[in-house]
């Protein structure tokens, strides 16, 4: 028999803590997007360079990022590297007298995992965007004496970012939602982590997660709406 009684007041007392957590969530998402865009541009440049060492990096990165669960990627950032860290610590210490500790804090591991995932997907956004730019743009740029990197940086890149701008907000939304995966690596300062912890104390499971869901909704909605406003201001051509 279902005899759960709602106690919203009790749940709402946790709102300040949850909002604090929402800020951390937003912070991780924003940083993961900034870093993700940076790496995605780098991966795109690697691929376009056609270099035999660099372009496989793009292939491997993108394949893993897009074809394995984000949860796995975050796990690897936390447990995988930690395993490696312990290994390195074990074997350098006796001989060299120093330790390399690769273990990441939950915050950094979560950020690294989401960034890795973002970069893979954003690279694909960028690839589509580049296809929409006529080849003759590069030709013109090169004819004016620009080197290949200059043509990419000054002519292709700005157009690519413009075309990919709105699709990129999709990834931003996804990044915000992915922060909840931090729960599996003992991340407890983000919105989901804070909520999860408080539930263990006050047992207002439904109310607490409902409030968290609404906060998530408001954050992602704010992102998509402000992206549209920014796009309208930014791209006047």
């Amino acid at each position, binding site marked *: 028999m279902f005899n759960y009684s709602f106690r919203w007041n009790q749940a709402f007392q946790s709102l300040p803590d949850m909002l604090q957590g929402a800020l951390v969530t937003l912070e991780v998402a924003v940083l993961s997007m900034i870093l993700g865009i940076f790496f995605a541009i780098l991966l795109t440049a690697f691929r376009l360079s056609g270099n035999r060492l660099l372009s496989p990096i793009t292939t491997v990165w993108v394949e893993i990022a897009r074809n394995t669960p984000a949860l796995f990627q975050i796990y690897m950032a936390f447990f995988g590297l930690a395993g490696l860290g312990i290994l390195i610590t074990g074997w350098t210490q006796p001989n060299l007298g120093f330790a390399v500790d690769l273990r990441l804090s939950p915050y950094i591991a979560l950020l690294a995992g989401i960034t890795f995932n973002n970069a893979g997907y954003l690279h694909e956004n960028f690839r589509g965007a580049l296809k929409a730019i*006529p080849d003759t743009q590069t*030709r013109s740029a090169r004819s004016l004496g620009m080197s290949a990197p200059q043509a990419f940086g000054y002519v292709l890149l700005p157009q690519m970012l413009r075309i990919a701008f709105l699709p990129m907000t999709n990834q931003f939304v996804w990044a915000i939602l992915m922060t909840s995966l931090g729960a599996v690596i003992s991340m407890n300062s983000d919105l989901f982590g804070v909520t999860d912890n408080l539930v263990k104390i006050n047992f207002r499971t439904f109310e607490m997660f409902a409030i968290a869901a609404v906060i998530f909704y408001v954050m992602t909605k704010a992102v998509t709406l402000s992206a549209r406003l920014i796009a309208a201001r930014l791209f*006047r*051509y």
Partner: protein
Amino acid sequence: MIEIEKVRKSFGPLEVLKGIDLTVAKGEVLTVIGGSGSGKSTLLTCINGLEPIDSGRILVDGVEVHAKSTNLNKLREKIGIVFQQWNAFPHLTVLENVMLAPRKVLGRAKDEAEAEAVKQLKHVGLGEKLSVYPARLSGGQQQRMAIARALAMGPSYMLFDEVTSALDPMLVGEVLDTLRMLASEGMTMICVTHEMKFAREVSDRVAFFHQGIMAEIAAPEELFGAPKTAELQKFLAATH
């Protein structure tokens, strides 16, 4: 001086240039006419090294374009090229389009690049459009902007690849006037064109290409007045 010696070039099984020999002197205006697929546009993109060649060589001021040791970016600074599709950079204003390469390639200071860009844009009649984005320009205006953009690099040679072919007939005149003006100023030019009247007026020499071969080359009065080959006679009859 541009020296083209025995240049051959194929795209897969299709040989588009079958041994071209041609010299263009400083200050000369050469127009190249011929049917589609005759190799005339390919020749232009070979001269500035956008396309590799299979054999022969091209020298620009004594520098071999396709030699491994040649710095193509450096060489392209003195060879301006304008294409049929004008390729304005859509994310930059007209002024920024023209300033970009002088700033980034030649390392010019902002003021200097801007002054030069304004001068070139006024020269081609776009002095009123400096802060406009290319999407707001007509095809003819965009093409003139592309010409100004090439000129801002201070090239010694200008190559024009059917620059009026993609234009509305109403807009052809303004672009041809720009070319005439450049010719009268002594710019060394190679113009691939289908505008016979223009070719007759401005050229020092006209070359007729047919199926990858330069079938005839002569002063315009001679080439248009007394075409020697049957192909040219046929071509001229068809274009009149």
